[in-house]
């Protein structure tokens, strides 16, 4: 049982003590008398996101189907097993649990404490670094990797990808690794922008009473608009290409934080430079026409996250698009300028530290002349938020 849950975690599925206890309760209630139902119970308890279905199925198959015959998972085994016994002895020895307390704990309480310790330890060991290479997992076989062609692997000079036939493999950013920087969220929250908006539907009781009193008891109703957060934020992510991979961890942690903080937040994806379209989905198959995207500039904040590191010809040449099938005839630079003009409140976040911009690539400075650019550090993000706020 312990290794099943550990394998789930290794497969990048977030597991909390809460789920484990729920699973335990479900088993105690006899909700999993056979393998099929065990599968459903475990999936209901542990999997909250369709993105994880595939990974879950593989772990489950490996764990319960791989050994020929399967055995009902037995919680007694957990209690009798070595990890639990050792943990208990340790807790008793260092006084975290006293013998008297132990007698008052139920099984669930003990399990909860045991798993809390275990999950914490695991969390420290592998802070979610196994995720590279899991990018192609997709639910129900809608493979994001379809399509032939070849990809030239390996990093070129300074991470510059030369013109290749891209296999359009993608790295899935949306996984949630435990976050190191809690304060990113507070910084981003300062972008929140509450305004009275919408129809006047909320009865302003104080005003109504005041006016009514003035009117000599003749009722006068006063309505006010509701408070609503009207801030729209679009995040454009560079999600392909080898030059970004060393920075994905950083981007991911910010990504996870941004998610919860805005009323209207949409993600779009691009690859390396922008040529006439952005994409709605990770594998970049659903394109949004340029005009439609640019049209929202007036009331939307835009954050671009990318390393701005590309072969100079991608930016400058008129046929620089990495995609051979693309027929874009304008250089990337032109598209970027147009984007910047359309989004007065926009900022480029670069995962490469500021100090290395001049040496890393010439294109960084060129793009920084078009977009205000900051690096993905706390200070950089704080600056970026200020830049966006000024253009409100």
């Amino acid at each position, binding site marked *: 049982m312990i290794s099943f849950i550990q394998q789930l975690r290794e497969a990048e599925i977030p597991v*909390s003590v*809460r789920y484990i206890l*729920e699973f335990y*309760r*479900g088993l105690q*209630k006899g*909700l999993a008398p056979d393998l*099929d*139902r065990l599968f*459903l*119970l475990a999936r*209901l*308890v542990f*999997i*909250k*996101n*369709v993105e994880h*279905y595939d990974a879950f199925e593989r772990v489950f198959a490996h764990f319960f189907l791989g050994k020929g015959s399967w055995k009902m998972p037995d919680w007694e085994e957990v209690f009798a097993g070595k990890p639990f016994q050792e943990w208990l002895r340790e807790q008793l020895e260092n006084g975290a649990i006293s013998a008297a307390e132990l007698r008052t704990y139920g099984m669930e309480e003990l399990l909860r404490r045991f798993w809390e310790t275990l999950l914490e330890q695991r969390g420290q060991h592998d802070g979610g670094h196994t995720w590279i290479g899991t990018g192609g997992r997709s*639910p*129900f076989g809608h493979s994001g990797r379809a399509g032939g062609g070849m990809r030239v692997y390996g990093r070129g000079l300074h991470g510059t990808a030369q013109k290749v036939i891209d296999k359009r493999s993608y790295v899935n950013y949306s996984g*949630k690794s435990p976050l190191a920087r809690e304060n990113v969220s507070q910084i981003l929250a300062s972008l929140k922008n509450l305004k009275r908006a*919408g129809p006047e*539907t909320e*009865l302003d*009781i104080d005003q*109504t009473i005041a006016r*009514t009193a003035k009117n000599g*008891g*003749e*009722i006068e*109703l006063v309505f006010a608009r*509701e408070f609503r*957060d009207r801030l729209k934020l679009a995040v454009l992510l560079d999600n392909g290409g080898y030059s970004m991979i060393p920075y994905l961890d950083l981007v991911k942690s910010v990504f996870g934080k941004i*998610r*919860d903080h805005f*009323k209207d937040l949409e993600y779009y994806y691009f690859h390396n430079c922008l040529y006439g379209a952005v994409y709605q989905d990770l594998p970049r198959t659903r394109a949004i026409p340029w005009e439609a995207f640019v049209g929202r500039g007036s009331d939307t904040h835009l954050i671009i996250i990318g390393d701005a590191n590309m072969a100079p010809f991608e930016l400058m040449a008129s046929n620089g698009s990495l995609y051979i099938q693309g027929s874009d005839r304008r250089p990337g630079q032109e598209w970027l300028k147009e984007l910047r003009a359309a989004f007065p409140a926009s900022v480029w976040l670069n995962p490469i530290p500021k100090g290395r911009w001049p040496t890393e690539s010439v294109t960084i400075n060129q793009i920084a002349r078009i977009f205000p650019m900051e690096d993905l550090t706390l200070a950089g993000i704080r600056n970026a938020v200020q830049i966006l706020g000024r253009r409100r």
Partner: protein
Amino acid sequence: MKFEGTERYYLSPELGEIVNISISMEKPLLLMGEAGTGKTRLAFEIARAFGIDMEEARCKSTFKGEELCYVYDTVLRLNDSRFGSGESGRNVNDIWDYLRFGPIGRAFLAEDRRVLLLDEIDKTDSDTQDNLLDVLEDGSFTIREINHKVTARHMPIIIITSNAKRELSDPFLRRCFCHYIPFPGPEEISIIVRLHFHGIPEQLLEACLTEFYRLREQGFEKPPATAELLDWIGAVRSTGASGPGAGKAIRHIGTLLKRSQDLLKYKGVNQKSQFR
């Protein structure tokens, strides 16, 4: 209590089991998946199968969560205090006469167990979801005006649906059992069609389904789903046509494609093919 589909509703064994697990574990069941996979219907069918009442909340983006529990009608009370409550029997001094319970409030206060459906929860914003979460988990809410706590007599069977228009917050997902309903394949959908059209000729069914799945693959903005399929087959049958028509000339295309853009696209595609 065990849930096993009803005569008008095809329940996949998997989904049935999921419903039963959620009920025994007393967890809200969050159903995701594209429109037309029977998410909302499921709640109705559960209520029907168990013979219990249902409270339904169709979410709107303006919801703040509280109105699903109760509404305090201040305007009415003001009005009554000025003009008198007349023969309505309301007592201006009694706030309870001006409190109206929403679906959650009614489900909590009911004498019997109810099914509570929160439809299209993704339309609400994340603050609302967080508010609802606490209410649903504790089985209680507080009427702020009089600081009165309402506690559920029987925990309702909670079914939540989402079209994934917006991502739900992690804490919300954590407190639900989540299930993604994939769009039914040809086999399942044949069962569904037969439930609605007894004795439909095999040939007609097959021809309809072929066209239906072909249309679905063409990437329309609103691809036809189960409800559209049933309407369409109904239309084809009622006119006594021998077949559904194919490719360029599908009969009653308006029942399948609802968006004008999709219809134009459908017609455009076919016009081009006529010139070829």
